């Protein structure tokens, strides 16, 4: 029910197409596609979601050109483009 492509949403994460179900958060969609490194820390370590509710900012990514968006608070949308690996700023 929670998995599997529905509603025909296509989003791209670092150029790779994903087909998340409607109502999925960007963070959940990325995890489902096997992406665990969302950003790079100040020292260059990979980081992924921790709190899942917008507190920790560890899941921040660039969405449609806007940096530092919390992937756990944004729902997927058709045509959305996500970039990971932003430096720890």
């Amino acid at each position: 029910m929670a998995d599997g492509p529905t509603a025909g949403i296509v989003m791209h994460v670092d150029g790779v197409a994903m087909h998340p179900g409607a109502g999925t958060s960007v963070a959940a969609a990325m995890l489902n596609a096997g992406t665990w490194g969302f950003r790079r820390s100040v020292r260059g370590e990979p980081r992924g979601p921790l709190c899942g509710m917008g507190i920790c900012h560890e899941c921040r990514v660039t969405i449609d050109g806007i940096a530092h968006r919390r992937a756990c608070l944004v729902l997927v949308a058709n045509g959305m483009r996500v970039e990971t690996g932003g430096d720890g700023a």
Partner: protein
Amino acid sequence: MSASNREFDADVAVIGAGPAGIAAATRAAEAGARVVIVDESPNVGGQIWRHRPGAAAPTGAIRWLARLERSGARVLAESTVFDLHRDDRDGFVVAFERAGAPGELRARALVLATGARERFLPFPGWTIPGVIGVGGAQALLKAGASVRGKTIVIAGSGPLLLPVAASLVHAGAHLALVAEQAPARRVASFAVGLWRRPAALRDAVRYRAGFLRVPYRLGEWVTEARGASVLTSVVMTDGRSSRAIPCDLLCVGFGLVPNTELPRHVGCSIADGVVRVDDRQATSVQGVFCAGEPTGIGGVDLALVEGEIAGLCAAEQGGAASSPLRARRARLRRLAAEMDRAFALRDELRRLPTAETIVCRCEDVAYGALYRDWSPRQAKLYARAGMGACQGRVCGPALEFLLGWDGDAVIRAPVTPTLLGAMCGREGDAPSVARVPSQPGNRNAPMRDE
């Protein structure tokens, strides 16, 4: 409605749309107040009632969500409040960011229902992707994450471990272990006392039944997470011997921490880390009420009762809470205090981080870079601990536990990272709540304006 009322966008602005905020907004609107409820999530429900759009809401939530909708309170979703201050007309200005654009609303009274977050404690490897919160796992699951076939360890403390364990098993995960740090003796005596609290007992039994095949160990905790770019195993101990468990995910959390940033920012008095409220849920600031976890961790039922009282009192300045509500609140507060004692954190957890362990994840500050006799402010100035994007929301409570630091630092706007454009939006850029689209013909309709 008096003439001056029209200068305000709302009689009552409720910040946070979890159970406390929903109950407050509903009761205030039912009492005839014009109510706006603001939340940063796409959907109302907060953390505990979080559900996907279109999916069925949790049973306990359905009645309240329907009642909120009928009440006429307006919902402003996906709106992150970054500033609250008194305006010059005996009310408050709530400044928020919504989809990158600034927004502002003026209200006569405020109900702060900002909820709680998880307490994370640093240990070697806790920054490796695949180490997530217990509530974090629940939130991601409800947001559509799949855990089918994943091997998962749950470790930490508190009643939250049980429902999350049940959810993960239900979602097809292979749960290897659920480890509660509190000693068996304390948890057992709490559980025995539950016979007097049938509802809480029923919940506990139901959740445990949801992961019956998985061991629930008391007096066991995580000491290390291992892996390079992703988690591969965790090390568990009971204080005598240790063992490594291979896993894909570690869900870890050590109880909840009240979100007191907005109450502190607007000047509410805080004691022992929680917002001080009187019998009417009124804070020390005139016109500001507070309900739910910020006044002390107590769970959904207590949050609802406090929300109801806060909403009623905020709607009718000078109103008083009914005695059945007050009695229920007192009973639930006693249960919360018992839970607090049962799941108190053990000393050994203070010795988990090494000098190299990162404590501030935003700025990559190692534990060894901090000095015990510093204040949180000195840690910010000298080591940048707490200076990053989360503004100390993660490392603050951890350092409070590890070093006994007082978390009550000054909170300045923006209370959460905010686009510069939203903060200094020019005249014309800054819509009042009136510019946010609403359903035609019904000024007070809850807004779901996708």
